[in-house]
């Protein structure tokens, strides 16, 4: 089970949740699970950044998540 943590605004949106354990092979599956558990996050889940084992992904549904992965869901990010 991958360990999923929420960062920043998302954490408070979801009511300051602790770590979530999910069974998922891809980022898309992680996001689906998270959406099921925290419907309050649904409106922004398609814009979030996701860090899998330290690597930040933006809009990458199919990036692989391993059973022992550490996943951070981070607020939408943009640069200059």
């Amino acid at each position, binding site marked *: 089970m991958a360990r999923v943590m929420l960062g*920043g605004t998302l954490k408070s949106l979801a009511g300051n949740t602790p770590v979530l354990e999910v069974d998922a092979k891809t980022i898309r599956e992680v996001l689906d699970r998270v959406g099921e558990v925290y419907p309050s996050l649904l409106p922004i889940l398609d814009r979030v950044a996701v860090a899998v084992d*330290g690597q*930040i992904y933006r809009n990458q549904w199919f990036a692989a998540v391993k059973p022992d992965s550490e996943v951070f869901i*981070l*607020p939408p990010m943009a*640069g*200059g």
Partner: protein
Amino acid sequence: MPLEGDIAQRKTTFKQIGTRPIRPDGVDKVTGRARFGADASAPGMLIGKVLRSPHAHARIRKINTAKAEALAGVKAVVTRDDFKDRNDALRDVLVNCMARDKALYDGHAVAAVAATTAAIADKALKLIVVDYEVLPHVTDVDEAMKPGAPILDKTMFTNNVEPKPTKPSNVASRCEFALGDIKAGFAKADVVVERSFKTEATHQGYIEPHACLANLGPDGQGEIWVCTQGHYMIRNTCADLLGLDISKLRVTASEIGGGFGGKTTVFIEPVALALSRKSGRPVKMVMTRNEVFRATGPTSSTSMRIKVGTTRDGRITAAEADLRYQGGAFPGSPVELGAMTAFACYDLENVKAVGYDVITNRPKQAAYRAPGAPMAAFAVESVIDELAKKIRMDPVDFRLKNAAKQGTKSAYGPTFGPIGLIQTLEAIKAHPNYRAPLGPNQGRGLASGFWFNFAGQTCTTLNVNLDGTVALAVGTPDIGGSRASMCLMAAEELGIGYEQVRTIVADTSSLGYNDVTDGSRVTFASGLATIMAAREVIKKMCARAAKTWGISADAVTWEDGQAKPAGSNAGNFKPMSFKEIAAASHSTGGPLAGHHEINADGAGVSFATHLCDVEVDPETGYTRVLRYTIAQDAGKAIHPSYVEGQFQGGAAQGIGWALNEEYIYGKDGRLQNAGFLDYRIPVASDCPMIDTIIVEVANPKHPYGVRGVGETSIVPPMGAIANAVSAAIGVRMLELPMSPPRIVHALDSRLKKAAD
């Protein structure tokens, strides 16, 4: 993913990468031939101009355009009534382009005209009558958060706070990033420093004002020529705002005269298209510098509190930040990025950063190089400097002792891969400038900084010509020499000469979608796509050679720019060069082309450390920068000159931000210094030579190891300069800019304190 496998084909020795050839667009740019946003014109073209609110906050009761429309030479007038109301993600973008029920800041667009000449357009603006009901305003972030402050948006209730607020406020949302237990952490500290800081808003200050030439016919087909960091963004946003099919709008990116994040959104483009549609003529719009300052996106102004504790032997036990950023009249300040990056340079067990996104009667902030990070870094690095002094530890050693490294769990969550912060610190420590003697009134300061770097959606096509040259089409506007880097990467991969590659920035109808040039992504992402497209061409070339020789495709390899039989078993054939295969292509299967599309990730975080010496004149408070040294991790420098240029440019912008640049608002809520005379950016005589050290810790997610470089360079300067100035005058400077009056004031209060 196949990508992973291909990237695993890492290159570490190079023939051309790392050399410094002349950029392909260079001659056009030194002869005045290069065409920027305002350099285009079209037959029958009209000139478009915008009427802007003179009030910081006002209800717009009525707009009467009758007299303007009646003026000879005026062909179209547009107001809020020409754009459909909307309630989605583009609502704020639209409201910012054209005010609706209220003018929210001095300079907010209220109406626009298109006329046969600029003079007539100006005259028409004066004939538009706007009935305003002036409302109370607020422009300071702390004032805007106070109970009783004028409320900009009565429907805004702060998000993410418990319990849910019952009253509207100017605080759009709160965010928090935390790790460990800061209470316990501070309990373990021997020394704690807690300070409050303020920074003023600064503008990206690109020398080229926004400009576009739009043409939209009654059939809904249109074109727009525009200086932008993202022509696909312009296309998609404008098509949506004007109700057009995306395919009907073709956007060409002109040469772009600087952006730094400020050209990642729309301002005049939808207005120009609306005017063109209404008038049936092409419309050119060029902002004045006054408009650029008043109505495009500066960065946030901020108010911050930082608290950090350390043991006597220099181990940080806890760190805490409260960040308040105002982002102008709309939610969306980069405070969350500030909170994530504030402590990213440090390996901390107990950390907490809280951010508040605040709205005020100022223009909507836009991205500015590493948005959100520089302000927080200024505050944090100031406190780190003070702590180092308190425990009598060398500031480099103090940072080294706490520096983030591979395996550090970053303060914003994820664990770092290979990173180069320590190398930048060591490089600075070893630099002679770290030991140069200092005279009276001189001070030395240093600071580190971090930025994520992003990659994103990218699409690139590489066409091989019959003569063995290559046409490379990328979709990311070239903002600082990226075409040279693209040519280098294509040439390196294909084993042909740099001059054999010509890179162009394709228009939106010629190439698939590309994200805006932001997040320091171009050399990484367009470079990655270029390398992949080149590898596709090589594969096809090997197949052509195989067919020519009558052997199987996998019996052919590619080496030094030629196809060769893989071994003696494959047969004995004379290798075929890139040029030979290209020349025969018409008979071996037709044109040869490579293409790659990708949503790239892994641009690789990057760190920098800046070192600065200043001299402060105690009489006038004027600060001169004496020496400036930068060490930054670039992963792999493709064209070192342009990497150095990014470092140096970021430092110079930082010098301006630290010492002079600020948005000054009057009591009336109007911007007082909307011009380069009063908003003073550094000139050549304000800067010393800027020494650079390129650190290269390869990014494992790029075939050559490239990391983004454009943004990190603006993160450390304000901290480094503030530490230097504070050392020079013996007073801790807590506000930016450290303009002469502020320094004189700080010196006076020190004298007063000493006298008391």
